[in-house]
């Protein structure tokens, strides 16, 4: 069964090629069948491979399939080869599974588009194919190919409604900001190849562990450069500014690319090259600090958004911050566990937000919603389950198990610290406040008078099935990893430790049960705060914002801590100024000189072309005399 591994990325690519070539000429149902079907079959193949992998694990829990030799130049021989182990298996299952759910949802939700229906599915299939290549890649070069492929699809899909220039700008911003990270990652790959002589991931890790002592500057540089790539892709500080603008794309795109899968590629990269980070403890600490800072900053910004999708985008940044925090303290399986659970509930939140937005005729302002739980009960329940899982309500939601694991391991891990744990706990409070702020603003309270009239829920089966599936997964998905105090069933981390090392924990004075009481009550307390400020008496929040200080603070946080302005002043404007000053390019002078030389010699030569026969004859005579003279006087 494992021999069919190549089918997993090949099917979406095939779907892309078919849709790209003849998609525009085929009827919509056919395009939708190819688009969603290719990913669906890919997900089925992934499921059966997972079954085979778990029931009969291959030798060493790794299976590699060599497809063909890609390049062979001297000693540089990257192959097109796919590798599956516990880590990539989880990633593949989530990407193909959640990807299929979102494709199915899109077949119905994108039906209102006048143009670009098959184009949408072509891009989405290309994305799924590239993402699967990324996680299955056997060497870092193939991984980089998938990495760039998903970046391209992200650009194409953010700018999907290309007729509005603002969408095009958002797409460019996402592309350029992630490019900064990608360039850093490319340099990191050069360093790895130059010093270790291979890009095959397993070999890189083995050789690095053998040749590099811990804390070697080279190892630090390589890990830091890879971290740069991860930070760009995963929208962490300081390259996080593109993600809120990326919400310009269609909602299924935001769900698939900018919440569930692509933005977690950075998490995957760090987990995949974990040995390098273990060799560079400073960088690993930086990962944790970046994660903790991002989860706080983004969580606070999420509190001030009025656009439902922007609020979810900040929430995504914040949750990926948790994953980085976990990676940074060496809680590898906790990070991957949270990635999986986050993919379920964040896709669910985005898709049910999409139902709300569609029902209100593309209204995305939460303050113009309100009281929708009666008109849109189905979307309400789905969104509520998603928010509950996001804010990690205890026991019943999957988010509780994953976030609790991260917090616990942050505190107990050898490289963890109480400060990071406190940041994570504060983030948990923020998370449940902003999650239930959204729930209360959208679904409770009085209906807003300006809102469009039409509010009936028209969603059919192709919207309901994915939402129900994801809602169920958001609730029970956590039961694969039960903590010691609640059943002690660590199936997930046992599975992941076949690939990634287990967390090195030190003994702790606190008991895990106390911590769970604490984090559980914190998230319930957050719900209570959200209830007080946004439902019981919204005037509290409004009065605060209307004061000058409150207003300034609100603007500052709404703009995502004004990182956009900072970068504008630091990079964009100096660059534009320099470009203006150098409008007549200095380097060009040299080339213009060469051009001038040719123009002058052209004038000289064309003067010789006088059109006077006698002068030509004169030239011939002089030439003849010279040649004869040379022969005679030699």
């Amino acid at each position: 069964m494992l021999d069919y591994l190549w089918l997993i990325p090949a099917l979406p690519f095939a779907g892309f090629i078919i849709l790209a070539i003849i998609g525009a000429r085929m009827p919509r149902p056919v395009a939708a069948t190819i688009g969603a079907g290719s990913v669906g079959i890919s997900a089925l193949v992934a499921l059966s491979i997972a079954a085979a992998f778990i029931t009969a694990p291959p030798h060493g829990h790794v299976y590699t399939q060599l497809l063909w030799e890609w390049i062979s130049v001297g000693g540089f021989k990257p192959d097109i080869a796919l590798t599956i182990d516990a880590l990539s298996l989880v990633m593949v299952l989530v990407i193909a599974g959640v990807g299929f759910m979102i494709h199915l949802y899109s077949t119905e939700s994108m039906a209102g588009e006048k143009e670009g229906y098959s184009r949408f599915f072509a891009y989405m299939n290309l994305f799924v194919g590239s993402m699967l290549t990324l996680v299955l890649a056997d060497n870092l070069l193939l991984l980089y190919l998938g990495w760039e492929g998903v970046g391209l699809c992200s650009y194409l899909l953010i700018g999907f409604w290309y007729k509005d220039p603002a969408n095009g700008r958002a797409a460019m911003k996402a592309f350029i900001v992630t490019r900064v990270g990608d360039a850093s990652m490319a340099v990191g790959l050069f360093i790895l190849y130059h010093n270790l002589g291979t890009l095959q991931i397993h070999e890189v890790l083995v050789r690095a562990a053998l040749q590099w002592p811990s804390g070697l500057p080279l190892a630090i540089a390589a890990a830091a450069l890879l971290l740069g790539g991860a930070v760009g892709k995963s929208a962490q500080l300081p390259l996080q500014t593109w993600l809120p603008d990326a919400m310009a794309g269609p909602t299924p795109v935001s769900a698939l690319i900018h919440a569930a899968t692509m933005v977690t590629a950075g998490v995957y990269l760090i987990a995949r090259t974990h040995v390098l980070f273990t060799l560079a403890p400073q960088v690993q600490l930086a990962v944790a600090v970046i994660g903790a800072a991002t989860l706080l900053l983004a969580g606070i910004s999420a509190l001030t958004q009025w656009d439902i999708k922007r609020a979810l985008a900040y929430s995504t940044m914040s949750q990926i911050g948790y994953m980085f925090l976990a990676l940074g303290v060496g809680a590898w399986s906790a990070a991957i566990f949270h990635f999986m659970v986050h993919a379920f509930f964040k896709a669910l939140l985005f898709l049910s937000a999409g139902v709300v937005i569609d029902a209100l005729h593309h209204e995305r302002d939460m303050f113009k919603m309100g009281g929708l739980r009666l008109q849109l009960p189905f979307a309400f329940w789905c969104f509520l389950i998603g928010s509950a899982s996001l804010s990690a309500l205890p026991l019943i939601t999957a988010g509780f198990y994953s976030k609790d694991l991260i917090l616990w391991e942050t505190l107990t891990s050898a490289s963890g610290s109480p400060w990071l744990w406190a940041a994570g706990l504060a983030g948990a409070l923020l998370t449940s406040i902003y999650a239930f702020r959204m729930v209360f603003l959208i679904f409770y309270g009085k209906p807003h008078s300006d809102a469009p009239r039409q509010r009936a829920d028209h969603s059919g089966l192709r919207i309901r099935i994915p939402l129900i599936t994801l809602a169920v997964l958001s609730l029970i998905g956590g039961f694969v990893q039960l903590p010691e105090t609640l059943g002690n069933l660590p199936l997930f981390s046992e599975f992941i430790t076949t690939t990634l090392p287990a967390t090195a924990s030190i003994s702790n004075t606190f008991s895990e049960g106390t911590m769970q009481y604490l984090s559980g009550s914190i998230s319930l307390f957050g719900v209570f705060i959200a209830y007080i400020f946004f439902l019981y008496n919204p005037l509290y929040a409004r009065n605060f914002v209307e004061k000058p200080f409150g207003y300034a603070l609100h603007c500052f946080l709404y703009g995502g801590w004004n990182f956009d302005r900072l970068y504008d002043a630091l990079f964009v404007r100096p660059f534009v100024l320099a470009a203006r000053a150098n409008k007549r390019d200095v380097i060009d002078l040299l080339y213009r000189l060469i051009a001038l030389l040719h123009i002058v010699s052209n004038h000289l030569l064309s003067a010789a072309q006088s059109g006077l026969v006698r002068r030509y004859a004169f030239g011939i005579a002089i030439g003849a005399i010279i040649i004869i003279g040379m022969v005679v006087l030699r």
Partner: protein
Amino acid sequence: MTNVPAEYGLILAAMLFAIGLAGVLARRNIIFLLLSIEIMLNAAGLAFISAGSKWGQADGQVMFIFILVMAAAEVSVGLAIVLQLFHRIRTVNSDEANTMRG
């Protein structure tokens, strides 16, 4: 019959060639250009004859006949071109036919 030294013939040929060349360079009238070219051709022919008689070989005379035939062809083609040119620009002044100037 006294032999004329070959040098005399060659000197005469060189002088004729110089006269022809001077004509080509100095005259503007295309007819005179053609005439001057004829003189240069005959100078070349005279040089062949002189050289042939000096070595006692017939090759020089063979070459002269070649030149004669070629000159006839050249004159016929040249005069045809001159006629066409006169049709177009209504003059036989070669300097005014400078439309190919670069």
